[in-house]
Each structure stands twice: as C-alpha cells, then as structure tokens.
C-alpha cells in the first residue's frame, strides 16, 4: 500500500477532534507533556558524544516520540481542533507503508530505500541550496546542481522575482514564479542529459495555489516528482498545508513532511528535539500521508544544526527510526558559514557523516543558515554527499564517526555564532558554464583531503 493513510478519516478529525485554544496548545499541552516524556524515558544528552552508540536509548526515544505524537497530536490552526491517532492506527500505518519507492523517471529513476544504522548502502542524495536567488542566476544554479554526479534528487533555490517583479505569496505573481521555476528546472535537466531527474518542487510556492498550479506531467511537477508539506513549529498545521497533502495524494506525486523542531524553543533541549523528530515522522506518515520526512532541526539563536547540541538529536532520532521503523527520512543540513569558506566545508562534512552513519538520507546544504540570497552553491553539497557515500561504502561504525565528528567540530564550533558569510554564487562559480571557480574548487579539494586523513575513505 502506498500512503496516504486513511486520508479522509484523518482529515475529518480537523473538524471533530478535541477543541483547544491556540494560546494554550504549546505552553499548556505540548511543552509540559514533552518534558514529562523525556523524564519518563530517561533520555539524557551527552555533549561529549555527538554520535552515541546507545541502542537502548535509541529505542526509548522511538517509544517517547510515539507517545508524544499519540498524546499531543497535531493542532489545526484553522479549526482550533487537534488531530489525534490511536496506537492501533499508528501501528497499522507503520505496517502498511512501504520501505522503498522508485522516484524520478526513465533512465534517471532511482530506488530510494530505508536505511539502517551503519548501513553500507549509500544515502539517497537530494541536493538543495535552500536559499533564495536572483532571477538571472536561477537557471545557472539549476545547471550547476544538475551536473553533480551523486545527485539523486534536486530541489532548486527559491525565486524572489519573476519577470522582474517581486513574488508575493498567495498572489498571481507567485503562480507566475512557480511556472518559471519548474520550466527552468525541466530545461536544465534536459540540457545536462538527465530529463527524468527526481525533483522536489517548487520551493517558490509558499501558498497551496502556487503548488497546485504547476502539477502537470508534461511541463510541470510530475507524478514521479515530489512536493514538500510543512508542519508549523511546533506540531501545528493549517488548511493550506492540508490542502497540499490532499492534492499530492489525489494528483499522485510523492510528498515529504518538512519539519524544523527548534533547539531552545518549545522542544527545550537536545533530548526534546530528538523525541520531536520521531513524533514529527509519525505525523508525516499518518496525517500528511507522506512517503518520507525532511527534517531540519535548528538552533534558536543561530538557525543552524551543525553544532553538537543539534548533531546529537539528529544522530539519536536517526537511530531510533532506523531500528524501529521502515520510514525514509532526509537530514537537512543548515550551516553557519557561507560559500567558499573552509568552515562551511567542515560543517557540511560533519553533518553528512553524523547523519549517514545513523540511518539518514541526505539533503544538503542550507549554507549561511539559508538567510542570504545567492549564498549557497553545489560544491559544499558535493562534499557532503561524497562523505555520505564514503561513510556507507567503507562500513564506518558509530564509534569512529564520533571520533571524526569531534575532530571536525573542533575546527568550527567556536565560530558558530559569528561565522563568515563567504561569497555569493556568482563570485565563486562561472555563471555561464555553471562550474566552480578554480579558487573555490581548490578550497573544496583541500578540505576533502583533510577529511580523508581523518579516516573517511573517499572512492575518488
């Protein structure tokens, strides 16, 4: 069976679930319940071990996430009611879902499978800069990413303008921007000879109308592609998001549940973030009916997830889900530093290494915390994916990954709060040819060689 799971029974709970004043949901229901659950399951963060090997704690985090999802549910801000599921329903959904999907089309189709802890199968690699970009650079960006050899899926940058006009969410300009977005992705994929590449599109659409407008198997987002459906932080949804879930199900394309639990926010610390990641994954499966989850936990002050207080929950939640489910989930890196800085390469390598050894697939890389226009490139993502492939192929164990992660952290962690912004795409890429400049490539190669000396056995 493919998701969505019991679509209309679940959707109906937006109208029939327990009523709750929105002001009360997070402070009175979510936060205290999460705190109780973290204590009940004796979940303890250890800053000295970004990659723990505690299988029992991983299993407790799975149970804790399950309990959180069952007890708290998902709050619909439009109806002020909570969508909840029973243990029986969660169990049924986990049984019925598939552990693998063919995505993309033709010769470019890829089988995307569930991974286990210390799996020797390489991760599924989705390249995404996660940033906004200038309209005149968008096409070059698409070409540059689609030329990446390890690319299994591609999510293009977000357009800020279309035809020289600012894109305003939920307006006709957004629909126009979405059309431009997908047409240029399609053309770029054809030009580089990968026309069937799996797309996650379109990021320019903040509103459901923009997404739905470009569903088209001839020129638009195909049924072999995917959409992302966000969950509002924390554990809230809205009709505009549920509209997307229904549309994806009925159109027949793939979908992923996008979540960003915040370290320091309503989840509290690292332990709460780990539990929330598991609970969000069950939300994606059961309520949105998604085939995968796309997680980007991040630091409240920095907006990044490459420091140890975020690597720990990534690592633990990955192991929890790998050991107890057949779910698919991508680890979305958010780095502090910007392009063409050594710090960004170290951050990306560390994030990829920790994620892959603990069961995740990769979604790299939101450079400069995805805050600045044009400040992300394919080259940092390339290093991350190469690390991911190497870690899997060599059968790296968590203990070794932990040692390497600590060495990498020592190179950048102290600068997390004040990281360099680096360069913009056009300053470190040849825009016409969509290739990195020599200076940029040399920096990538230097860091890659250093990472190799730490014990990462790159195939090339």
């Amino acid at each position, binding site marked *: 069976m493919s998701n969505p799971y019991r679509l209309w029974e679940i959707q109906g709970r937006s109208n029939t679930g327990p009523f709750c004043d929105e002001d009360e949901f997070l*402070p009175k229901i979510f*936060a205290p319940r999460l705190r109780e659950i973290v204590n009940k399951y004796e979940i303890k963060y250890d800053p000295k071990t970004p990659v723990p090997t505690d299988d029992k704690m991983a299993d407790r985090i799975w149970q804790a996430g399950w309990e959180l999802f069952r007890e708290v549910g998902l709050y619909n801000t439009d109806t002020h009611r909570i969508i909840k599921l029973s243990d029986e329903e969660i169990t049924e959904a986990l049984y019925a879902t598939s552990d693998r999907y063919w995505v993309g089309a033709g010769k470019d189709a890829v089988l995307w499978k569930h991974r286990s802890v210390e799996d020797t199968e390489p991760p599924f690699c989705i390249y995404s800069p996660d940033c906004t970009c200038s309209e005149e650079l968008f096409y070059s960006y698409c070409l540059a990413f689609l030329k990446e050899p390890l690319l299994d899926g591609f999510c293009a940058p977000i357009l800020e303008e279309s035809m020289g006009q600012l894109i*305003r*969410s*939920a307006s006709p300009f957004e629909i126009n921007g979405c059309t431009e977005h997908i047409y240029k992705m399609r053309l770029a994929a054809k030009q580089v000879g990968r026309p069937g590449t799996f797309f996650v599109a379109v990021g320019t659409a903040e509103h459901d109308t923009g997404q739905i407008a470009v569903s088209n198997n001839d020129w638009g987002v195909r049924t072999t592609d995917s959409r992302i459906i966000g969950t*509002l*932080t924390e554990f809230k949804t809205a009709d505009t998001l549920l509209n997307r879930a229904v549309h994806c199900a009925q159109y027949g394309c793939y979908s992923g549940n996008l979540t960003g639990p915040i370290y320091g926010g309503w989840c*509290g610390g690292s332990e709460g973030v780990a539990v929330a990641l598991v609970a969000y994954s069950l939300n994606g499966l059961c309520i949105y009916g998604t085939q995968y989850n796309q997680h980007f936990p991040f630091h*409240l002050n920095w907006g990044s997830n490459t420091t140890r207080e975020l690597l720990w929950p990534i690592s633990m939640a990955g192991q929890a889900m790998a050991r107890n489910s057949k779910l698919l989930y991508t680890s979305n890196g958010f780095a502090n530093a910007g392009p063409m800085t050594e710090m960004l390469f170290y951050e990306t390598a560390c994030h990829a290494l920790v994620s892959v050894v603990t069961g995740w697939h990769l979604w790299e890389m939101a450079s400069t915390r995805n805050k600045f226009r044009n400040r992300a490139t394919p080259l940092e993502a390339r290093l991350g994916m190469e690390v991911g492939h190497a870690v899997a192929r060599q059968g790296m164990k968590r203990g070794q990954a932990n040692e390497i992660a600590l060495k990498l952290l020592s190179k950048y962690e102290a600068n997390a709060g004040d990281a360099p912004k680096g360069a913009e795409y056009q300053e470190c890429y040849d825009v016409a040819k969509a290739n990195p400049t020599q200076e940029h490539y040399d920096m990538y190669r230097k860091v890659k060689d250093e990472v190799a000396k730490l014990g990462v056995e790159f195939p090339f």
Partner: protein
Amino acid sequence: MSLEELCKAVETGDQDKGKDLAQKLVEGGTDPLQIIAALTKVMDEIGEKFARLEIFLPEMMMSGEAMSKVVGVLTPHLKAGGGGEPKGKVVLGTVKGDLHEIGKNIVKLMLQVGFFEVRDIGVDADPITFIKQAEEFGADIIGASSLMTTTMPHQKEMIDILKDEGKRDKYKVVIGGAPTTVEWAEEIGADLYAPDAGSAAKLFTDLLKK
C-alpha cells in the same frame, strides 16, 4: 512573604503565587515601583539566560507570564500613584500568507514584560488589518514579522499603503523575521530592523525617543 519570595515565584513561573504575593506586598505597604524594579532585574537575568540558552523557551515564557500577571496586580496601584504608564503601544503580527508565529510571540512577551502594551493580531495578517488595528488601538508602533522570503513583500506593501493614505508619519514601523535584514528594512523604508527578540524592548524604547 517577602520581595525575594515574589522574585522566586516569577523566576519559577508560578503565576498564582506571584499574584498572591504581589497583592499582599502592596497591601502591606511595599512601594509598587520597588517591586517592579526588583522584578525587572529578575526578568533581565532570565532574558540573559535565555539568550545564552541556559534556559529554554518554555521556562522563559512561564516566567514572562508570571511577570505579566504580577504587573496586572500592580498596575492599579501604580496608576493611583501617578506612575505605571506603558512605554508605548504596539500592534504586532505576522504578515499575510505567513503562518509562522514563534518569533512574533517571543517578541510580544519581551515587549509586555518591558512595559509596552501589545495588541497581537496573529498570523496571516493583511496589511490593511495592521493599519486598521493600529488606528483603533492608538498604536505608536506597528511590528510586522515575516519568516518566508515570498511573504516579505507584504511588509513593504503595508508601508506603501501607509504612505498612500498619508499615515506614514503617524506610526513607527518595525520589521523582523528570519529572512529579513537591515538592508531590506532600509530598502522598504521601515524605521527599525529588529534582529532578535532579546533586544526588542530596548530597541523599541529607543525608537520612540527619536
């Protein structure tokens, strides 16, 4: 019953105890301004701990809520003594098309404990709603948050409408949110870019002095 106990109640987020102690203290003759001064120091320390993430949002919000309740108890006494006027009135919301609220809600709390009166108009707020609410509330400041690049133009749209209606000088406009920058604030003609919640009360206070 002591001021120290009240400070502890606010620090631990015990709303009922805080209200009760504040009432008893003020009835026992303690100067409400002295109470406010002590609690302001407590909240400053909590704010600093939160900024360093030595405590997390739930704890900070609980303290803030307790502080708000205590201020509610003290306000009539402050007004009777000729003090306790708010520093300013703020209409605060997340712009149209944007459903994110966490940053806006932290700013709201920081402003409230910093003695601003805040009218929260929620998320997905139309530019006209910001302006109408500011008119009705008699606001000094309009604060507009955006977390998505494609919703940032609604911050500009609101300022443009204020200009078109000849009301631009009536309000100070503050913008914030993850994708926004000081450059964007300057480009669209906002009066202030608020980079984080922690500095909001101070920046808003300084803005009103200009």
